[in-house]
């Protein structure tokens, strides 16, 4: 598949490297002549210097046959216009815009352009993962409607020695598996919890935080 990326900096460099490694054909549009020279030396991609929201430049990189256009410049207005031009004028089936201002992600979707906000993505990752050291794995399933989380119970946890049936878990949450001494158990109400147990939890995004606090003891 042919992918056109408009933008610069490290995100563009690493995205391009990933896509070419996966066997995609990548074309880059960047405004800065010096960055273009550098990119064309480092990457095996077509590099065109110019304004990505100019129809001529999009034509030059072959927007007509592209499968995806990805607009990741630091200016939201440019990203929007690039995506609209690509889909309206060149019929590119899939266009994705970076919304630098997180509010613009919803705005772009309303204007018919698929958008993502790195602020949203990173902050939700940090919320769910980095703030709690005990979390060893996290997997969103069902289009992000359900979280599968693996946590390690340390000796300080308030649930140590308690039976599952005595825990006050919010509704729509489940301890699906307890891994004790490398042996997985599907626990029942009378089973108790011990330090070093690894638990696999099923939660929903809305009760994810409160459920974790039951096990880690962190004050809400």
């Amino acid at each position, binding site marked *: 598949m042919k992918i056109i990326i408009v933008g610069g900096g490290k995100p563009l460099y690493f995205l391009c490297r990933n896509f070419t490694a996966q066997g995609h054909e990548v074309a880059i549009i960047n405004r800065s002549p010096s960055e273009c020279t550098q990119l064309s030396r480092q990457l095996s991609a077509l590099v065109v210097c110019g304004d990505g*929201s*100019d*129809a*001529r430049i999009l034509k030059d990189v072959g927007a007509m046959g592209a499968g995806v256009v990805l607009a990741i410049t630091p*200016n*939201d*207005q*440019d990203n*929007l*216009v690039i995506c*609209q*031009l690509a889909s*309206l*004028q060149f019929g590119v089936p899939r266009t994705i815009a970076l919304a630098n*201002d997180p*509010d*613009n992600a919803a*705005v772009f979707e*309303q*204007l018919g352009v698929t958008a993502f906000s790195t602020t949203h993505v990173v902050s939700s990752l940090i919320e769910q993962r980095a703030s709690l050291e005990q979390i060893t794995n996290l997997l969103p399933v069902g289009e992000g409607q359900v979280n599968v989380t693996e946590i390690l119970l340390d000796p300080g946890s308030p649930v140590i020695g308690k039976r599952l049936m005595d825990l006050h878990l919010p509704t729509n949450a489940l301890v699906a598996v307890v891994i004790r001494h490398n042996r997985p158990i599907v626990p029942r109400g009378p089973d108790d919890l011990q330090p070093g147990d690894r638990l696999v939890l099923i939660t929903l995004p809305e009760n994810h935080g409160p459920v974790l606090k039951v096990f880690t003891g962190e004050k809400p």
Partner: protein
Amino acid sequence: MKASRFIVVVGCGRLGSQLANQLSREGHAVVVIDPNEATFNDLSPDFSGFRVPGDASQMAVLKAAKLQRADILIATTHEDNVNLMVAQVARKIFQVPRVMARVFDPKRETVYCRLGIRTICPTSVAAEMFLHAITEDTDPPGGPAA
């Protein structure tokens, strides 16, 4: 006298400030948005509208300008893409009944017409006027003056 309208002008450069001054003088309620507060100095002393400093590509700034109550939005910044984005946001999200954008690149006009945005291209307007002036000049002296 014409009914007073609520008009938001985005960009307070030469074009924006002139429009804002004129519309305010005609009795309309005018709000001007520009990220550079120094540009508000170009508004005339009798300008009676509001000045909102900020980047119009941010929703919060458009909300501060009370865009949801506007009858007309005119986007006059020197960046085509800002004008086109603000115009679409005004039309589709804030439901502003009349939206106009200045667009320098004539090639972009066609695409944005399709999106229901009325664009005015200074390049095309100037070219037309020059061509008109040329044909006038070739008329015999004393011919019709516009």
